């Protein structure tokens, strides 16, 4: 197992490197001179020439990439054009806010989806299954940015029980999920966000558990006199590796793909940051956020893979 784990960690290094290449290439592909995007439009030619030299833009592209990578690895992602603050600081600050709602959504979606999916798999073809699959299909079909608006109309505008947008007075520095006055700002974003992973994980759980229940050994378990719950326990342990993979992907999607939800709820996370950066064409922030988020995604997948080895004996002893 240790060999497998070490191998898996080594394998994610080239992927992470590839991710940095893509992030770097994005700026190259962007229309206009990259140096232009680093400077205010009214910069003088001397300033441009100076920066060109400092950032190494006069060198060949692979060298430029390596220089950029070197700076990125040391934590220097450049300076935001809008706030003039280091991009790293902005992104990390926003990331902690994103984690608040994505982890909340993850916990909600995962637990609900796993229970519903298992129930559906056990009662496949029966009303319980149809209802659960119906919820799942709606979950993956509904545009969640629209659902967010609808929820705001209902809970904030009509009922007035929950705040519509923002993070409350506390701000990101002292936000606590355990204080209702602050936590209530996270309720609607979390609800909206959890719907898609709920649908996807439920479907995966359902098909994975149903597939296991079709295996020969389930006949054997029943022949041993085990009841439905004991049989399900076996099925769940067998389906777990597959479900875990999808859960990991979904967690990554939530962290990396919260841009729409955060924009709607003006939640000051990475997505909101990127949304602002797009509007203002703040390329260093955009690039920095993408880099940090995709590397986070890579490491989440890595952790899930490692977790998987712990639950699957077929890998554990390999």
């Amino acid at each position, binding site marked *: 197992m240790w060999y497998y784990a070490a191998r898996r960690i080594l394998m994610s290094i080239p992927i992470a490197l*590839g991710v940095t290449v*893509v992030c770097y290439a994005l700026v190259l*592909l962007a229309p206009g001179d990259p140096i232009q995007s680093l400077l205010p439009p009214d910069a003088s030619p001397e300033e441009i020439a100076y920066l060109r030299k400092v950032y190494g833009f006069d060198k060949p592209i692979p060298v430029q990439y390596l220089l950029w990578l070197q700076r990125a690895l040391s934590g220097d992602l450049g300076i935001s054009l809008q706030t003039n603050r280091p991009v790293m600081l902005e992104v990390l600050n926003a990331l902690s806010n994103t984690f608040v709602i994505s982890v909340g959504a993850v916990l909600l979606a995962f637990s609900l989806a796993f229970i519903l999916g298992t129930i559906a798999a056990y009662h496949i073809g029966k009303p319980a299954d149809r209802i659960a699959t119906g919820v799942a299909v709606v979950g993956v079909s509904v545009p969640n940015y629209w659902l967010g608006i609808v929820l705001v109309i209902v809970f904030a505008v009509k009922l007035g029980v929950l705040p519509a947008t923002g993070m409350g007075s506390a701000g990101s520095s002292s936000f606590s999920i355990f204080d209702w006055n602050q936590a209530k700002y996270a309720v609607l974003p979390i609800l909206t966000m959890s719907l898609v992973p709920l649908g996807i994980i439920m479907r995966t759980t359902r098909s994975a558990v149903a597939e296991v229940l079709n295996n020969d050994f389930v006949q054997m378990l029943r022949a041993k006199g085990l009841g439905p719950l004991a049989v399900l326990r076996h099925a769940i342990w067998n389906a777990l590796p597959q479900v875990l993979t999808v859960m990991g992907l979904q967690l990554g999607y939530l962290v990396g*793909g919260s841009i729409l939800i955060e924009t*709607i709820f003006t939640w000051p996370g990475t997505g909101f940051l990127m949304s602002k950066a*797009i509007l203002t064409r703040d390329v260093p922030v955009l690039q920095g956020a*993408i880099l940090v988020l995709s590397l986070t995604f890579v490491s989440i997948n890595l952790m899930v893979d490692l977790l998987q080895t712990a639950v699957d004996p077929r890998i554990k002893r390999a």
Partner: protein
Amino acid sequence: MTDVSAFRLPLFRRKREAREVRGYWASVANRLRYDYVTLFFLAIILTIVLLSIFAPLLAPFDPTKTSMAYRMKPMGFRNFILGTDELGRDMLSRLLWGGRTSLMMGLVPVAAATVIGGLLGVIAGFRGGWVNSAIMRTMDVFYAFPSVLLAVAISGTLGGGSKNGMIALTLVFIPSICRIAESATTQVRSLDFVEAARASGASTLSIIWHHILGNVLGPVFIFASSMISVSILLGSGLSFLGLGVEPPTPDWGLMLSTLRAGIYVQPLVCALPGVAIFITSLSFNLVSDGLRQAMDVKA
């Protein structure tokens, strides 16, 4: 090299009886015939497609004609059956026209990605070795981006516009479709009938054409069909962020975004584009599910 005379040639030409047995696709169609849910949503998709195609004929008003006097009117106001938007444009006309762009955003990237990703996947799966590694590791890098992030990143740096949006979405879908095609090909490649084809001396291209494609197309097609709804949602999402279709072109995602300010005035009217996206994406999802079930042959 080939000497046909070495074969035992048949003595007489025979007439083959009419096929009494259904082929694979015919039996899939037959199974779909009894799946009323799928048929119902297929009909909805057809309706949406037809409405979009004939939008120029059906739309009662010019979708881009603004009117300051008729801003944010409720449904049924004067001739505006579904009300008006924040610039006084007719909602019904805009929804009909918007279907065109939204469907384009759903279908074009998936189709393009299926061709490109499918081809790459089949090549990777069939050749194996370093070709496989080169293709699949590159895919892994793109797979290492959350799809929304990748779409936003690409169209964010390329700049907005529906063309860039579609390019971004295509790039987002290629890795996953490529993976499906690769794993299906790898699976089929090791089956006995492919070995038998190789044992009869067939060339690589002939084996791929006659024996691999037919068996890989199914899973790829099913997966791609399930991506259409994702593509519609993502495409509308990009427009919603101002990265997709540019105003004043009507598009459901964009409409949703510009109408956001109006939710306190006319919540129902403002929800309409979302409803349209939801119904379309739901229909594609359910039809894709139905297709998956119908194509699941148990031999």
